[in-house]
């Protein structure tokens, strides 16, 4: 009781001192030019301070706040009581509102909002702070997740830069939801602004304190993100607070390259050249910076050439996109990738930063790409590469719950230019269905792609592979030196089958294909396939080579590895030999002449019985084969 009286006395004394101070000031004529706001620090002491109003947030329980005369701090006459509703309360889903004044207050002489609080149980208040004026909210500040216990305790919310608050109307605001579905009550009392010497060491950051560099172009605009602020509280701990961009004063080292406005919006205005974006709050420099490396005029991604009727577009300004849930799922906890999409002259570009992986989802509805053959993506790596990168694309089908991924090598000299990826859908191993595609996931396999732009993401049907019109070249080996398995130019030995349909792993189907009386084998949905000639087996002891003509009708976007295995049933041995087929060797007949001595492990060839073909890299959807025979030189 005595303490209370002293405190009251001290309050009056403080007010008296302020009065004395103001009365002591002589007014100059020039002082009258600007009407200053009152510097009243009190928000709610034993009732509403002069001019204070309350407005509940939309969707909140309008009656959540009330004045309580029973439960008060230090036996004062009134406190503020807040009743947070249970889940599914028909009146509203949360408690939240703003205490504001019609006329602004001058809070520049204080450095913190303080109040006493307690609750019916230990609770967490979602967000609480000041600067919400139901308008521009220019100087809004809050603490997320403020823990309040069952005993009265004093809480402090620092003001990042008091000099900005010369006419502030938003004096206090809060938003609180239920905990595990259950509501609760909390009380707040003695809400006032103070000048505290016990909060110290303010730290501010842009871009979460990182020094970043970024390639950009004239016309690109983006917002400086990662604005953080911490103050060291009287207990020595660091308290993070959310502060509005307006507290930061942003600067560009060269506005002729890039400008930045008071809200942190960067616009690249010139180039080539560099501009460094930095910031400070009051006289405290913020950690973090961004060097904009303007390349000058923006280079748009190549205009895609596919006809709209052959395209299902996920992201492109050249087609109508299907509904997309999101272009960045922010999948916690392992994803670091953030988005900074931008638009240049009407061309929207996806921009992924801090890239490790990121997913695009289009599940409402899913996409039926059964009739599509390819996924098209334009990507641009704005940072230089020191070593080759592996850019992995994964497709996920929600219907069959299957996924497949393909990694593409991006060489050092492909950085800082648009790259076109045309990925055959047949080449996504494991993607056995694409009738309910729902996700595209990009992964930085080697961890050396800090950011990339993406554009023109769509599925397309390239149409049928051009029909094969040229038969295989006529082989020239003398018949007496040949043991033929499949050829119209030699007599073939008895063959059990040209496709064993070996379950369960083989997907390869096959048919015979004929041009002007010349028969060829056509293998499609190829992964591996075996030809067997065991009745009788073939004695190729005197032969030196295996010959095969193959023709890949589909374009290759990376070199393929075509494996041939020979199996000898007599000795029970086998050997394999792999041939690289380069991207420029498709859509032409290739003559493979494989020395039998080069099949390691094939120690006997007196009872050969199988030839097996296999697609090592999974990028040969189909091929034609002809003139399969052993010969000797």
């Amino acid at each position, binding site marked *: 009781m005595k303490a209370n009286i002293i405190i009251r006395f001290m309050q009056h004394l403080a007010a008296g001192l302020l009065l004395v101070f103001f009365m002591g000031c002589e007014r100059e004529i020039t002082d009258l030019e600007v009407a200053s706001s009152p510097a009243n620090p009190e928000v709610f002491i034993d009732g509403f301070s002069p001019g204070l109003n309350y407005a509940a947030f939309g969707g909140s329980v309008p009656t959540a706040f009330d004045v309580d005369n029973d439960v008060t701090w230090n036996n004062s006459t009134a406190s503020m009581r807040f009743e947070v509703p249970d889940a599914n309360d028909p009146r509203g889903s949360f408690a939240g509102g703003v205490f504001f004044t019609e006329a602004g207050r001058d809070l520049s002489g204080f450095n913190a909002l303080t109040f006493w609080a307690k609750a019916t149980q230990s609770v967490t208040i979602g967000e609480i702070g000041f600067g919400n004026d139901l308008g521009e909210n220019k100087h809004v500040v809050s603490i997320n997740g403020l823990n309040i216990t069952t005993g009265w305790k004093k809480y402090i919310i620092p003001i990042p830069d008091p000099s900005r608050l010369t006419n502030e109307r938003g004096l206090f605001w809060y938003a609180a939801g239920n905990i595990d579905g259950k509501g609760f009550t909390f009380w707040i009392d003695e809400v006032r602004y103070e000048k505290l010497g*016990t909060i110290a060491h303010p730290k501010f950051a842009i871009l979460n304190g990182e020094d970043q560099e970024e390639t950009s172009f004239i016309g690109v605009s983006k917002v400086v993100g990662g604005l953080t602020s911490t103050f060291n509280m009287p207990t020595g701990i660091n308290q993070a607070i959310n502060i509005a961009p307006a507290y930061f004063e942003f600067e560009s080292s060269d506005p002729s390259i890039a400008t930045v406005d008071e809200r942190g919006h960067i616009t690249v205005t010139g180039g080539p050249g560099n501009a460094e974006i930095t910031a400070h709050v009051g006289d405290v420099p913020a950690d973090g910076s961004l060097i904009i490396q303007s390349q000058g005029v923006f280079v748009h991604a190549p205009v895609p050439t596919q006809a709209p009727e052959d395209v299902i577009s996920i992201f492109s300004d050249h087609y109508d996109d299907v509904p997309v849930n999101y272009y960045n799922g922010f999948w916690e906890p392992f994803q670091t990738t953030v988005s900074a999409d931008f638009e240049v002259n009407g061309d929207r570009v996806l921009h992924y930063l801090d890239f490790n992986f990121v997913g695009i989802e289009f599940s409402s509805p899913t996409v039926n790409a059964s009739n599509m053959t390819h996924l098209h993506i334009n990507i641009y790596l704005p940072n230089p590469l020191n070593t080759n990168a592996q850019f992995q694309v994964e497709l996920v089908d929600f219907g069959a719950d299957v996924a497949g991924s393909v990694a593409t090598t991006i060489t050092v000299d492909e950085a800082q230019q648009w790259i076109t990826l045309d990925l055959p859908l047949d080449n996504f191993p494991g993607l056995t269905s694409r009738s309910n595609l729902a996700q595209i996931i990009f992964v930085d396999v080697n961890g050396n792609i800090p950011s990339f732009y993406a554009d023109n993401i769509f599925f397309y049907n390239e149409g049928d592979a051009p029909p094969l019109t040229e038969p295989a070249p006529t082989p020239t080996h003398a018949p007496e030196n040949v043991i033929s398995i499949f050829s119209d130019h030699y007599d073939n030995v008895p063959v059990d089958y040209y496709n064993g349909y070996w379950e369960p792993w083989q997907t390869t189907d096959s048919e015979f294909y004929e041009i002007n009386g010349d028969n060829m084998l056509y293998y499609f949905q190829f992964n591996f396939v075996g030809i067997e000639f065991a009745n009788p087996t073939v004695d190729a002891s005197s032969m030196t080579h295996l010959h095969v003509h193959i023709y890949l009708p589909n374009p290759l976007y990376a070199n393929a590895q075509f494996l041939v295995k020979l199996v000898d049933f007599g000795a029970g041995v086998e050997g394999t030999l792999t041939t690289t087929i380069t991207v420029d060797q498709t859509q032409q007949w290739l003559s493979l002449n494989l020395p039998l001595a080069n099949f390691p492990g094939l120690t006997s060839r007196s009872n050969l019985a199988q030839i097996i073909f296999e697609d090592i890299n999974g990028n040969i959807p189909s091929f034609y084969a002809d003139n399969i025979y052993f010969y000797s030189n």
Partner: protein
Amino acid sequence: MKAIYNFKKTHISIIVILIMAAFSGCERDDFQKLPERNWELIWSDEFEGDSLDLSKWNFDIGTGEDGWGNQELQSYTNNPANISLDGQGHLVITAIQDGNRFTSARINTQGLFSQQYGRFEARLKTPFGPGLWPAFWLLGDNIETVGWPQCGEIDVMELRGQEPHTIHGSIHGPGYSGGNPVSRNYTLINDRFDNDFNEFAIEWDADKIDFFVNDYLYQRIENTDTPGEWVFDQPFFILLNVAVGGNYVGFPTAQTPFPQKMIVDYVRVYREVN
């Protein structure tokens, strides 16, 4: 060159200081006026130059026995990252967190300088945050022969980082050591010891030890005040350190900011002259 310093001591209450600040025209209240004393500077380190003067200081290295007797977490090093001069006349001791490991520094004048009685003072800025434990303190020269606490310990200044506004002045001896020293704290009103430099001092003679913050006397311990033997009639040497964790301060928390620095402007030792 030896300088003679004059000090005039007044003991006035915090309330009076506040009132004084408000009404600066007030006369100083001079009750509990201390006698004037003349001090002769005997030893000092102003921490000028680029490197610590090893003719004045030894490093304590490692984790000591049982965390230097207090279950402290840090390992002391002589790494410049942990202890260096800033080139602007300050010693900087930096406590660094690396995962669950902490490094810091501790220096002493054992075998290089010690003194019985006089004024020991340091001007410094403290680190802050739960689990930080900076100290400016003295130990009896005979610690190697009689051990602790028989040798005596004078803590001119120590601080718990979770109370950055409060310092403690203490003495430890036989029967009043560890968690039971003769001690008093001094708290800044609406300020903290890490906001600016403050001067911490003791004035010590055969009868008593007086503890000061910025020349404000906040504690006098007379030789009849100790529950055990008065062991403060022999030379003591000086220590400066920043500990992390330990019995006195508790563990650092996830919200303790690191790295943390204690910045020392000077350490000076005087002898009284008549």
